[in-house]
């Protein structure tokens, strides 16, 4: 099977689209922090992109997608990518697959910023990020997509519900506990400083997600088309569901609406190649309500997982993994879920999602603790007070 230019074109552009999501997350988050941390928050996304890009080329891709070693990790055959050259992988050049997967690794780290926003030390974030992507992301990607033990188990994850969203969402929670609350959290309001910025970020995320999910078909075909339309449907259903749920409790905020859209997008991610449009309506709508509830739960507990990666990505990803096991339809992606009588798939999904939750929580706590002991994860009180923009970057967002 040679390289197919149509499939290659689709993967090239999908890669670019997912790449754009990483600054998209930065803007999404950046609008929600206080003005004094705007530069810092957006910059951490760019930084995540830069360091993961280098790590991926050097070792990350090989760890995730190198030949399987005991179901746990890839071997080092692809270190430096030097053995890859212009060869193909299925109908696309191998290098475009490398690049496509790179963008997933990058955004996953960027999502994690939620747990440390407005208080993390720049230098420590770099160390933490390198360790996290190597020790949490790469193995998980291998388990699910690289021929590891979860793949063996038969767990489905079309575009990264487990690998990307559960892992980043629960890791953000773990690290938020470790680094501690922002000073003044719960005492005075920490209003979002620029909601339009968050809306711009949402636009880039929604756009990029088509590459994320439909690109994961690795081909420009009917499966990609299905992934695209269920992605859009779930996003819309999620937006509407969160909007109405929050309307019921108070005002229907725009931040709620877009959080619902992201929740829907997260939840459909693992399912995009397996479910039909009507199922995606249900998946998205339920995601909107569940993630909204998770956010309320977090706030009531006084947890400062500041930008709700846990509520939206963690819980949304968990729901998406389970929903895949419920709604998968054979005529779409070749697998059947619970409503078509297949309990096994449902169980496999729960095992995979549960394993990812535990692995992400435990490993992240260990990594973060080590970094904290060695370098200190958190800036000083005075640095936090003047803001990370000045204290970490020597900059002010707006003159």
């Amino acid at each position: 099977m040679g390289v197919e230019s149509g499939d290659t074109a689709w993967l090239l552009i999908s890669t670019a689209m997912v790449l754009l999501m990483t600054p998209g997350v930065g803007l999404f988050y950046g609008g929600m922090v206080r003005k004094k941390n705007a530069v810092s928050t957006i910059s951490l996304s760019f930084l995540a992109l830069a360091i993961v890009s280098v790590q991926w080329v050097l070792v990350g891709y090989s760890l995730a997608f190198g030949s399987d070693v005991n179901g746990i990790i890839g071997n080092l055959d692809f270190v430096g990518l030097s053995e890859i050259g212009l060869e193909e992988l299925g109908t696309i050049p191998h290098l475009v697959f490398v690049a496509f997967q790179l963008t997933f690794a990058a955004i996953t780290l960027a999502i994690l910023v939620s747990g440390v926003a407005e208080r993390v030390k720049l230098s420590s974030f770099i160390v933490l990020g390198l360790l996290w992507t190597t020790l949490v992301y790469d193995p998980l990607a291998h388990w699910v997509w690289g021929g590891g033990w979860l793949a063996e188990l038969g767990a489905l994850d079309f575009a990264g519900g487990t690998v990307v969203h559960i892992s980043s969402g629960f890791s953000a929670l773990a690290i938020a506990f470790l680094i501690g609350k922002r000073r003044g959290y719960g005492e005075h309001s920490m209003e979002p400083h620029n909601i339009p910025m968050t809306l711009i970020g949402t636009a880039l995320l929604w756009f990029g997600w088509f590459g994320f999910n439909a690109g994961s078909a690795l081909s420009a075909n009917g499966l990609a088309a299905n992934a695209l339309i269920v992605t859009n449907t779930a996003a819309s259903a999620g937006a509407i569901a969160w909007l109405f749920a929050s309307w019921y409790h108070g005002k229907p905020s725009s931040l709620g609406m877009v959080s619902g859209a992201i929740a829907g997008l997260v939840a459909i991610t693992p399912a995009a190649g397996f479910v039909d449009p009507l199922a995606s309506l249900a998946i998205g709508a339920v995601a909107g309500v569940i993630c909204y509830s998770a956010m309320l739960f977090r706030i009531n507990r006084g947890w400062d997982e500041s930008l709700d990666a846990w509520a939206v990505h963690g819980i949304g990803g968990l729901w998406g993994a389970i929903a895949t096991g419920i709604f998968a339809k054979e005529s779409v992606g070749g697998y059947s879920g619970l409503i078509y009588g297949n309990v096994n798939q449902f169980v496999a999904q729960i095992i995979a999602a549960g394993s990812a939750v535990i692995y992400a929580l435990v490993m992240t706590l260990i990594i973060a603790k080590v970094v904290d002991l060695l370098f200190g994860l958190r800036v000083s009180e005075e640095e936090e007070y003047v803001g990370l923009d000045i204290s970490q970057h020597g900059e002010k967002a707006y003159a």
Partner: protein
Amino acid sequence: MKMIMAVIRPERFEKVMEELEREGFIALTASEVKGRGEQKGIKLQFRGGTMEVDLLDKVKIEIVAEDEEVERVIEIITSSARTGKIGDGKIFVIPVEMSVRIRKGKMSA
């Protein structure tokens, strides 16, 4: 009448407003300002050396009140804005000779 002009920490603004309201001092005008205190801002540790952050964000509150209310307003602001750390801010009292409500066009001296 006096104008009480207070420069406080932004994160205490909400609390100050609530406390003022509770005691019936509702009317006020607020604006975003930047301030440098006698401590010359904050010293940040920075790669061996230190760096000074000169101007910090503050909120300025202006309240025009009757002479006899001034002391109470100052007490409320002081108690609700204080953290005990550098940067808590200052309150100044300035004489006001006249006040006019635009809606009514009514003056009061």
